[in-house]
């Protein structure tokens, strides 16, 4: 009976602590480039289970000891930390890193898509290089930013990525129109378009004439302080104050001009505004 108990104790202790000790190490390179293949040598210790765990991959296979495991390029396309385990009774593990390959694409964020003219530091862009497997390239690379308007180069700014990012800031152009913003990295080129629009109306001015039942009020062509035409559709508010009370009309610009017919009688004061910009006042009298 005593012998049986001792035998059972030894078996349990052996089962808990592991019976076989692997005498040799698992070898893998410390790092590899995404999309490359690599080999891992395993110790010659008999049949074992091989595990590969990493970003986008999780594999389990049975191997014979001493076998060289080949990892295909497709297995190692995602940059990150990979873990290799070899289990035969006990488990050994090692880790290696996959780094990004050379840039294969460029992500380019530009803001805003519409900007008033002559605004300092109004336009900004951020470029991030990625390899063909969409891994962020963290080694510094040179990126050139070009701003072009009406096919003329307005600004050229070279930059180098830091922590995988390159960025720029620029003042918007002096005249309305399309501005092309391009980021270039070697043969890679990405283009974005920024629409430069007129700023707030400047020197907002109205004229008026008497018509039946009131006045017809019209603005002169509405422009910003740089002389660019304010876009059609911009709302101009006309306000008439007279004996009957106050009348207002919000009219959009059409071909640069806004007009409205306002019902009024007697002495009337008519003013105009667009957004937070005020224009002149007219003092009119509606003659019967």
């Amino acid at each position, binding site marked *: 009976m005593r012998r049986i108990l001792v035998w059972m104790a030894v078996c349990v202790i052996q089962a808990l602590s592991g019976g076989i000790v692997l005498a040799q190490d698992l070898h893998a390179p410390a790092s590899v480039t995404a999309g490359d293949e690599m080999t891992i040598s395993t110790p010659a210790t008999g049949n074992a289970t091989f*595990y590969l765990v990493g970003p986008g991959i*999780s594999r389990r296979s049975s191997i014979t000891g001493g076998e060289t495991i080949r990892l295909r390029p497709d297995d190692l396309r995602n940059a990150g930390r990979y873990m290799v385990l070899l289990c035969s009774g006990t488990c050994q593990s090692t880790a290696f890193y996959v780094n990004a390959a050379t840039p294969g694409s460029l992500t380019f964020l530009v803001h805003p898509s519409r900007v008033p003219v002559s605004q300092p530091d109004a336009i900004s862009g*951020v470029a991030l290089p990625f390899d063909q497997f969409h891994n962020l390239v963290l080694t510094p690379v040179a990126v050139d930013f070009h701003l072009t308007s009406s096919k003329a180069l307005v600004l050229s700014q070279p930059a180098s990525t*830091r922590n995988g990012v390159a960025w720029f*800031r620029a003042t918007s152009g002096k005249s309305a129109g399309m501005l092309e913003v391009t980021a270039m990295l070697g043969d890679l080129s990405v283009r974005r378009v920024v629409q430069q629009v007129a700023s707030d109306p400047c020197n907002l001015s109205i004229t008026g004439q008497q018509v039946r039942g009131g006045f017809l009020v019209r603005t002169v062509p509405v422009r910003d302080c740089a002389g660019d035409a304010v876009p059609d559709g911009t709302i101009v508010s006309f306000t008439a104050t007279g004996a009957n009370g106050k009348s207002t009309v919000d009219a959009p610009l059409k071909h640069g001009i806004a007009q409205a017919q306002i019902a009024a009688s007697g002495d009337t004061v008519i003013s105009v505004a667009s957004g937070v910009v005020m224009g002149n006042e007219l003092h009119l009298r509606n003659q019967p």
Partner: protein
Amino acid sequence: MTRQARCASHAFFALFSLAAFLCCGSLPGRAGDSTLSVQLDTSRAGPRVVESLTRQRILRDYRFAWRSLSEAVEFNTLNPLNGPFVGDAKRWLSETVTSQQKSGISQRYTHQSHELGAVFYAPEGDVIELHDTARYELEIFDAGKAVDSQPIVVHYVVLMTPGSDRWVIRQLQAVPQF
């Protein structure tokens, strides 16, 4: 029952209980990790200064993202990845989960601690780059049986962008060092 047989059965029972206790201790539980700390230092962020409210939201959403990631790779389910992850981060995490479903492998991240440092915040605030020194206990299971457990330190380069109601992780890339 004779006295000897009684002794043998008691000893057998004791040894069996000890073995069962030790085995059960190594089975994967379903409680989930309740210790997940995240710290964020935005003092080095530029060119844009990180707003106080943005900082709070990023902390909250990053913590939630890692909880979701842990749940996804532990229980091999894709649902937790919808929401906190977009783009390439979601793609490789989804591939990880799908691959684990086929192989029967699962991972558990416990005792997580993330020290984040913002290194870039775009002028328009539409992307932020963080460096995460992540410390956690990584356990790997094969068909529910633990095959490995070790504490590790991993350096992640993280790109987050503002979504409709939260900040989302667009890139989560481990690197040997920053």
